[in-house]
């Protein structure tokens, strides 16, 4: 059996996992050894997240203090959004799956990536708002809110988006080719 036949015998799932593994290795090397030490993208996400969360809290009537990475409801010490805590790692996780999963046109893939990233950024703004409010209303629960917020805010969104992408991609794969 030659190498080409052997490649054909790899199941689609295995092929996808190898591809996803490769994409994630590249992402984490990029993230751990360039993006995180460089800090600019992290800083942008942290600053803009804090700024948007502060503006929204203000609109809803809370009196807030906001300065670069720090957001506080007046009367509290507030929360500081550090590099590595702004959802960037999770955005990479999301992107890796969408790139690696077969099917789906390039246009749909780009739209799904852009929409998903936007949604995750909005979710992060919502998470920062929850942090600031939890320090004000239930400071004793801060540790729990901080630890489990990702599980309850980010993961359901990422898993749902991944699932939707598999559905869209599979429909495209099964649809008769028109060109």
């Amino acid at each position: 059996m030659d190498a080409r036949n052997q490649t054909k015998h790899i199941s689609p799932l295995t092929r996808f996992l190898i591809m996803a593994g490769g994409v994630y290795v590249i992402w984490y090397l990029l993230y751990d050894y360039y993006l995180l030490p460089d800090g600019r993208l992290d800083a942008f996400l942290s600053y803009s997240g804090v700024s948007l969360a502060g503006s929204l809290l203000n609109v809803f009537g809370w009196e807030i203090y906001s300065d670069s990475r720090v957001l506080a409801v007046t009367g509290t010490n507030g929360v500081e959004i550090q590099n590595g805590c702004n959802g960037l790692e999770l955005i990479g996780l999301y992107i890796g799956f969408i790139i690696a999963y077969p099917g789906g046109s390039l246009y749909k893939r780009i739209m799904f990536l852009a929409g998903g990233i936007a949604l995750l950024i909005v979710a992060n703004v919502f998470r920062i708002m929850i942090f600031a409010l939890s320090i004000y209303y239930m400071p004793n629960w801060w540790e729990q809110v901080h630890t489990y917020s990702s599980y309850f805010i980010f993961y359901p969104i990422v898993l749902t988006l991944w699932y939707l992408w598999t559905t869209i991609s599979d429909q495209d794969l099964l649809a008769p080719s028109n060109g």
Partner: protein
Amino acid sequence: MDNHQRSRSISTIKRLILILSGISVLYIGVLRPIQSIIIQNIVVPHLESIIGNNSIVKIENVDVDQIDISGDFPPTKFELPFNGWFWLTLGLFLAAGQERLIRIMTYYHLILFGALYVGIQLIINGWTGIAYLFAIHEHIYKVLFLVVGLIGLKPLFKK
């Protein structure tokens, strides 16, 4: 999608939410405190005793279920097996009735206990290059199991 398919899909979602809720309560209420005890009372004291004062390797950070070690390599995270990712993925596997995958993932995490222990010993003894491999592995394996769990759910929604 006809009415039968729709009601089947809704019952699958209900089942998934129920399983994940149960696992969340178990994880937050029981498993995470146990992991914290294991890290604080067993892992950290043991590592401190074998690292000693003169080693270039240091324990950088201790968290509930993980430690970061550093040296002449970037800080590397060692998370206990059977961590949150395991339980989240287990929820997906259970909902999908993927018994074979549950076994594979459980064996993987059991083997990981030994692999992490050997890995840390090697790093402390100067094989610091291995830290890079463990850093990559730490990032990759959890996501891949989760992805398999998600794909395993698909047939349930399609039936």
